[in-house]
């Protein structure tokens, strides 16, 4: 077993070899990312092993720049010969790509210089036997929960840990070690009539095996979630308030992140072009980034270009504080990178203070949205139309499950129509948000 230090040093050495090779082959600058990791995943179904998979992955991706022309290559083979070939392929490509002033490494003075311990690496010495036993316990808890649980899609446990190195010819080189573990269960319920089979699932995930929920609780919750779906009905078409559970609220906020992301903005392919300093959300909305949360799902001291990350407000009082830029999109827009070449590092949405129950009461009558299907979003106009499942709520109380409906609106209006953000965070999700209640959406059904 290699120590963490040896593994890190080895990846740094490989990255330096790749950079030196790029220089030797004439590149004026270069950057390289290398990842290596291993893991185990076990799926069981009906109390038997279904799949036992051992993972061992490695890969290297590099970009070379000849002045302002770029070439990229990747390889799964980390031998020196393969790296040399990859550099050669990238250099060959750069002969044919065009000069583009906006290309190149992020500016040297923006590179991260401090590397706080983020506590992301906690490998799990999980044996196949133990994994199988745990997954079966999880699935049993679900199957024994209620006689209406008639079938199973199985339970799965997985553990992965590994290293990601990034280096560039500014002299920046760093390695991040991280782990992630999860346990999930998916079961199928049937009414006695045998009609209307439903499936749902539940999972737990963490960087630390000890922080996972118990196998039994994951199993039981998956059974509860599935049973709740039985006898789902269609709704007639109507306009109504919609409450997104935290998992889906996080998805809603991810559409905001895309819309103010450099890639969509410099192409003017966003409904939030020129939105800086404008009010997009109601006054009470605050979204902020905290890259240094210990064990955080998206914690990082530097982004995908080596640029130092920092704590910052993304939205304050409903007003756009910053776009989310990498160096290329920033230069295209005449701005400076915001350290978001690899996305936002741990986003939090401030809550307006309501618990889940209080959010339901506040909605009074409307749709509690628990599932979305399909990808009907137009990023340029913000038009939104997706398949939905959930519960019809009346007087703040869940009445019955609903399915085979769609919800539709426009994201710009949806953001402005947020009524409240709950404090019912779901710790499994990297975006820390509670449920989000929208004043109204169009629900299409029968």
């Amino acid at each position: 077993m290699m120590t963490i230090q040896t593994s890190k040093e080895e990846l740094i050495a490989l990255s330096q070899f790749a950079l030196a090779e790029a220089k030797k082959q004439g590149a004026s600058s270069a950057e390289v990312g290398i990842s290596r990791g291993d893991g185990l995943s076990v799926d069981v179904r009906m109390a038997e092993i279904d799949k036992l998979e051992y993972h061992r992955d490695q890969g290297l991706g590099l970009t070379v720049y000849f002045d302002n022309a770029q070439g990229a290559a990747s390889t799964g083979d980390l031998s020196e010969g393969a790296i040399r070939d990859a550099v050669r392929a990238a250099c060959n490509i750069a002969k044919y790509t065009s000069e583009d002033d906006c290309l190149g490494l992020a500016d040297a003075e923006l590179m991260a210089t401090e590397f706080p311990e983020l506590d992301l690496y906690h490998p799990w010495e999980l044996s196949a036997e133990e994994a199988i036993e745990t997954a079966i316990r999880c699935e049993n808890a679900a199957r024994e929960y209620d006689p209406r649980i008639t079938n199973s899609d199985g339970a799965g446990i997985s553990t992965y840990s590994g290293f990601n190195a990034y280096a560039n010819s500014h002299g920046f080189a760093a390695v991040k070690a991280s782990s992630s573990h999860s346990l999930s269960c998916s079961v199928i319920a049937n009414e006695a009539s045998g009609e209307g089979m439903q499936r749902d699932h539940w999972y737990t995930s963490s960087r630390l095996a000890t922080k996972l929920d118990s196998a039994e609780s994951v199993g039981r919750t998956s059974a509860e979630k599935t049973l709740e779906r039985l006898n789902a009905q269609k709704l007639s078409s109507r306009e109504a308030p919609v409450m997104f559970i935290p998992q889906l609220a996080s998805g809603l906020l991810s559409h905001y992140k895309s819309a103010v992301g450099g890639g969509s903005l410099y192409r003017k392919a966003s409904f939030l072009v020129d939105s800086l300093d404008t009010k997009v959300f109601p006054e009470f909305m605050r979204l902020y980034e905290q890259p240094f949360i210990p064990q955080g799902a998206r914690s990082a001291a530097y982004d995908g270009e080596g640029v130092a990350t920092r704590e910052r407000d993304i939205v304050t009082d409903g007003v756009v504080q910053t776009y989310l830029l990498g160096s290329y999109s920033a230069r295209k827009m005449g701005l400076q990178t915001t350290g978001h070449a690899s996305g936002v590092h741990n986003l939090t949405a401030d809550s307006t203070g309501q618990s889940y129950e209080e959010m339901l009461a506040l909605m009074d009558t409307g749709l509690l949205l628990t599932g979305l299907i399909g990808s009907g979003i137009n990023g340029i106009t913000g038009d939104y139309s997706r398949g939905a499942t959930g519960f019809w709520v009346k007087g703040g109380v869940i009445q019955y499950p609903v399915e085979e409906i769609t919800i539709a609106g426009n994201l710009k209006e949806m953001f402005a129509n947020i009524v409240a953000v709950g404090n019912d965070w779901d710790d499994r999700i990297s975006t820390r948000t509670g449920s989000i209640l929208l004043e109204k959406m169009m629900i299409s059904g029968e």
Partner: protein
Amino acid sequence: MNLMDIAEASLLTPYELDTNKLDHVFDHLVGPKTDLADLYFQSKRSEGWVLEDSIIKSGSYNISQGVGVRAVSGEKSGFAYSDEISMDALLASAKSASAISKAGQNGRIKSWERQTAYTALYSPENPLDTLTESEKIELLRLADKTARSASPYVEQVIANIVAVHETILVADQNGHMSADVRPLVRMSVTVIIEKDGKRESAGCGGGGRFSLTYFTEADRIKGYVNEAVRQALLKLEAVDAPMGEQVVVLGNGWPGVLLHEAVGHGLEGDFNRKGTSAFSGRIGEQVASKGVTVVDNGTMQDRRGSLTIDDEGVPTQCTTLIEDGVLKGYMQDKMNAGLMGEKSTGNGRRESYDSLPMPRMTNTYMLAGEHDPQEILSSVKNGLYAVNFGGGQVDITSGKFVFSASEAYLVEDGKVTRPVKGATLIGNGPDIMNRISMIGNDLALDDGIGVCGKAGQSVPVGVGQPTLRIDGLTVGGTAA
């Protein structure tokens, strides 16, 4: 050289592997309870170029190779892989994969049999080499130029071209060795237009298992560009889509995404073996309107979804899934077929050596009926005519599926009138298939751009259908 020679020369010989050594690996992999075991060697090269802002913005070259080792005992699969092809890596993987059933001394292959009788559905030629770099770039520049002259409102053109060349070799516990060399190319053009302060975007493209010279053929690129520009301009005029249940006429070709989602996934063998599909246990039942015949056909020449052999070494076939409305069969890989007492239908596919194979679709389409498309449209008093789609998704257990219309029109008194904004259509697979009331005589397949995702694995697929009338599908618009 035949495919087997090519594959051995690139996947075994350089790593000092031969059948004797593979024998030894199977010794460690196969036990008395092993029903199925295989080694999947793969080498893949791909190259992509992107044009944006009228310049060749980026290019990339990717190399990957490795070997996946699998042992199956009953419903249990043991799997390990390595991105290093070597005897040591094979033995280590065999040891891990065999953990699901005790292995030892049962795997001795009696005699190796190289399967070479099948007819290749595409050329083994490396598509990356079929055009020079300058020629590839020229195609992208042509797309840019054509788009900018097609309409004064074109603000941005993003064009890309991708070529993949893949060699696979599958060796199984029965001593069967099969090989395939697969080309795959794809080009797409996306335009962003701006008119009177309003912006829209649309894309078009195509591809298949052939050489890049396909894109140099007369008016190919012009066709993609004009189509993208036409669709984007049309979106500017679109009115809000209707909401609620509507009579929907689906155009031919790409709208076959409907079949892929509404019935295709639900007829994959694994879900049916487990009894988790809305179609489970329904063979022989009327699951669709009379006249509806749906097939999955992996044997079409040059098609994106086609395969000479699947990723388990089984030649692909044309499998009838639904015939005249009656459910006939499932798509199977070796493991699920074995467990269900059936034969593999050549649908065992995997994204790469590092993933387990599963039953997957190839080219899935509905056969033509007898109605003239115009006649179908004329039959609709009020409804929606949807001709282009984004993607779709299905919950195979509840049967609920969606697909997103990107180009659709209102139908009023049998006439196609105004374009409507993109909207999601939602239905229940088994239910919707029974609401097909008219089938057009204009079967078409898509242009070769489909990607299907399942359990985290993506594979190229094809879809197709004739024009269809569906008597009631929920349309996720905003106009009451």
